[in-house]
């Protein structure tokens, strides 16, 4: 796809030597940068390239509405082709960046070499695979729309599945399996399930949901070996036991897509290290899942893998490039739906501070809880209480 018609006209208006801006990675973060640049008055050329063959789409519904069979693939699209055309982008899908040369300000792609004045790295993350299972057809992962459609198809008619990883994605997959009446076993090397940003406070709640829904749990074990048979897949575990299912879903996290930056000189240990404006080097920015921004409030540099951070970083970088203005640091926000429970999380709950119940009651399965340390609220979770959660957000601003 391309919005060539409009772009050709636009490009004529700017000087031939001006290479403009290149955005690598055409998903939520990259697209938000382009929108923000235009909204903030950036008129130079913007080239957006993305490795996938699809128009940008939302990933959160993949493990929720799409896996549950409630949505068709097209419903995940972020915007229509017409909306992209309005932004006046040179937009190319199915093209990936392969090498960055900062000195010459060029990025080599699978199709050509692009010169840039400014570069935004928005290449996100790739799913982490379980070594040895890469080619096993009964072992699934979930990161792209194609993964989601493939997994949904594989669920038809099966009765059992093994999920590796009891994080938020694994938990969402387990609840989808349960809706299909598929019996799940979950394996994790940690001792409990994990929700992001919650300091372990909800581990036992999530585990209770697993138990209530008949999920077999294998925590604190390592996988010794995996074998694929004609009818299923078997895991040998470090406690001497074996677990099997007709298929397996591996949800053990993601790895930032930084391969093309290997010789660039940038710090790419756990994502592209950036300052609090998203600058990794002069004229080089990174946003979204691939980026590790410095947070001046906490003093830490963290890679945040969620929609809101991708959007907020995209908005901030667009504004910074177009106007030179910085944006305030925001709190990370995440949501999930596990066995029908709507969970919203803001900030970072601290493990060693007990929860304060702000609204509702945990025994009614509807509450808002926070961790408050020395009068400062560090994180808030809403459990089936979205409106009260929104009202409580003011606590974080105080």
């Amino acid at each position, binding site marked *: 796809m391309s919005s060539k018609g409009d772009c050709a006209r636009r490009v004529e208006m700017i000087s031939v030597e001006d290479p403009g801006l290149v955005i690598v990675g055409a998903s939520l973060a990259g697209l*938000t940068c382009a*929108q*923000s640049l235009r*909204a903030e008055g950036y008129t130079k050329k913007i080239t957006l390239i993305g490795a996938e063959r699809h128009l940008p789409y*939302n990933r*959160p*519904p993949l493990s929720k*509405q799409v896996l549950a069979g*409630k*949505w068709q693939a097209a*419903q995940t699209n*972020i915007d229509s082709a017409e909306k992209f055309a309005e932004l006046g982008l040179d937009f190319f899908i199915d093209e990936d960046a392969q090498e960055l040369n900062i000195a010459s300000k060029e990025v080599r792609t699978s199709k050509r070499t692009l010169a840039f004045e400014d570069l935004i790295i928005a290449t996100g993350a790739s799913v982490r695979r379980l070594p040895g299972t890469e080619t096993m057809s009964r072992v699934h992962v979930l990161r792209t729309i194609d993964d989601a459609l493939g997994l949904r198809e594989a669920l038809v008619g099966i009765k059992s599945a093994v999920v590796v990883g009891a994080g938020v994605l694994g938990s969402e997959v387990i609840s989808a399996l349960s809706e299909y009446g598929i019996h799940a076993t979950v394996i994790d090397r940690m001792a409990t399930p994990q929700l992001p940003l919650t300091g372990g406070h909800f581990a036992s709640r999530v585990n209770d949901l697993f138990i209530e829904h008949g999920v077999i749990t294998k925590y604190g074990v390592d996988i010794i070996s995996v074998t694929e048979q004609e009818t299923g897949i078997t895991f040998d575990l470090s406690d001497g036991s074996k677990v099997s299912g007709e298929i397996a879903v591996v949800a053990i996290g993601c790895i930032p897509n930084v391969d093309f930056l290997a010789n660039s000189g940038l710090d790419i240990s756990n994502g592209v290290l950036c300052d609090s404006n998203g600058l990794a080097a002069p004229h080089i920015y990174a946003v979204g899942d691939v980026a590790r921004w410095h947070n001046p409030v906490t003093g830490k540099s963290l890679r945040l893998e*969620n*929609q*809101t951070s991708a*959007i*907020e970083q995209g*908005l901030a970088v667009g504004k910074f490039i177009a106007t030179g203005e910085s944006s305030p640091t925001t709190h990370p*926000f995440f*949501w999930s*739906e596990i066995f029908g429970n*709507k969970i*919203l999380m803001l900030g970072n709950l601290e493990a060693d501070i007990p929860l304060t119940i702000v609204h509702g009651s945990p025994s009614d399965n509807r509450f808002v809880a926070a961790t408050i340390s020395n009068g400062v609220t560090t994180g808030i979770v809403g459990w089936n*209480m*979205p*409106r009260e*959660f*929104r009202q409580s*957000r003011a606590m974080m601003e105080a």
Partner: protein
Amino acid sequence: MKIRVDRDACIGAGQCALVAGSIFDQDDDGLVVLLTDTPSDEFIAVARKAATLCPAKAIALEE
């Protein structure tokens, strides 16, 4: 300008009601409720901001 919301996509984050409370509210389940689908000119900028910030991309603007 006309606003459309997709309540099937909405996850009740409330970003919209936070930045544009005159246009968006939330029902008891937290799902977005449109107070008006044709905001007056002075509210178009905040409506656009809400659409950009919505983490579920559940808000669409038709010019």
